[in-house]
């Protein structure tokens, strides 16, 4: 990582919330999470050409509805393109034996290309793009805070089987809370060490051992910082009467409107359709 890239870490966000105020933004986060999960599951199962084309059109429609430029979704796909291509080639060349159904187009040594393996390649590429798009819509239209609250609320019934729902959501909140803090800390350490002449990732890329050694002076202090902060935070939370497993009230109340349930119903039906779609 070159010196001018130091500043990058300051702007880290997990999930890049883009408030456009569309109706998708206003849907109860719990509903969105359930709908998302169902959709992803359906996409993962659906392995036909037609099904995937329909699914792809549907997720593009979601971008329109949430008034988020499709560019945001594409930017998630772009860095993956080389991998998609490499993977596709590998699958195409070596997966013929496993996906041995269909017509055999080419057979040369270990290389077997069948209509089945071609389908596998195209469908998995499409699937990947669809999943990136759906998750982009979810994270762009829902803030991380909302997502965490939604998750916690969904898991609430698990309390009856002693599952620590609130504790889990607190853990996730703390994790999200500290990412930017640690990033800034990291930046400070990099600058301090750079000023003492340390170089990060300056070694040539093939010197793997060198480059790996370069990262220890950064990574290990990062863990130390985290663990030390943890001790402080424990005290601060106790000072504010926090008791794990205790009865608490909650400030944020989630309310799902009738329209939200309609959206959920629609997503469920659509997912079922994808799963059973015969072509």
């Amino acid at each position: 990582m070159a010196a001018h890239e130091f500043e990058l870490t300051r702007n880290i966000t997990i999930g890049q919330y883009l408030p456009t105020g569309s109706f998708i933004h206003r849907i109860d986060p719990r509903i969105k999470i359930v709908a998302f999960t169902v959709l992803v599951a359906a996409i993962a199962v659906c392995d036909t050409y037609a099904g995937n084309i329909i699914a792809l059109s549907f997720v593009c429609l979601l971008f329109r509805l949430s008034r988020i430029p499709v560019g945001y979704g594409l930017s998630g796909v772009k860095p993956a393109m080389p991998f998609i291509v490499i993977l596709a080639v590998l699958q195409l060349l070596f997966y013929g034996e496993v996906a041995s159904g269909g017509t055999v187009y080419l057979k040369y040594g270990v290389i077997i290309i069948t209509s089945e393996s071609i389908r596998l390649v195209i469908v998995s590429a499409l699937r990947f793009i669809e999943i990136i798009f759906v998750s982009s819509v979810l994270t762009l239209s829902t803030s991380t805070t909302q997502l965490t609250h939604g998750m916690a609320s969904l898991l609430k019934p698990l309390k009856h089987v002693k599952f620590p729902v609130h504790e889990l959501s607190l853990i996730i909140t703390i994790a999200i809370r500290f990412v930017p803090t640690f990033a800034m800390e990291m930046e400070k350490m990099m600058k301090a060490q750079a000023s003492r002449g340390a170089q990060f990732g300056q070694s040539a890329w093939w010197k793997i051992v060198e480059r790996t050694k370069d990262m220890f002076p950064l990574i290990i202090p990062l863990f130390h910082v985290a663990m030390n902060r943890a001790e402080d935070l424990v005290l601060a939370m106790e000072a504010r009467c926090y008791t794990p497993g205790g009865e608490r009230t909650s400030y944020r109340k989630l309310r799902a409107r009738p329209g939200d349930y309609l959206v959920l119903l629609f997503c469920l039906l659509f997912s079922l359709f994808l799963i059973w779609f015969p072509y």
Partner: protein
Amino acid sequence: MEKGLTVRKIVIAGVLGAVAILLGVTRLGFIPVPTAAGNATIMHVPAVIGGIVQGPVVGLIIGLIFGVSSFLNATIPLFKDPLVAILPRLFIGVTAYLTYAGFKRVSEFAAIGVAGFVGSITNTILVLTMAVIRGYLAPGVAVTVAVTNGLPEAVVSVIVTLAVVVSWKKLGNAGKKKSKISGDF
């Protein structure tokens, strides 16, 4: 001590989860060995450390955070599949803890080191197995990746785990000794 989640367990799971996320988004935790499954990473090390210092539940939760974040940030199709990105990660901290607990009686240092190794290998093996099952990688490719990525990952994991855990537990003559204040209700 093992009675559910204490404040300390919650907080340590949280901050180590933050480190796991950070190592992923900044790519700081990447070991540059380019292979079909992307770079080798040390993003799983927080789960290993969490498992060793605070037990299997904390290790599992950090693994979950790591898995979800790698799922959300995935740039390669392999990790856009929750069965590959999330499920295997739950076991990292758990196996690390079990190893540590098993070897503790032999030697604290050895236990930490071996746990760092086992936790890392758990990640490699389970992720790749899942990748083969789900049809992203051919078995032969997976074995290659296990060697080219898995080994450097395991080595780095052992070093970082030892450095962090030994000093957290104030083993040896680490100088400034501190007792952990309360935290356990």
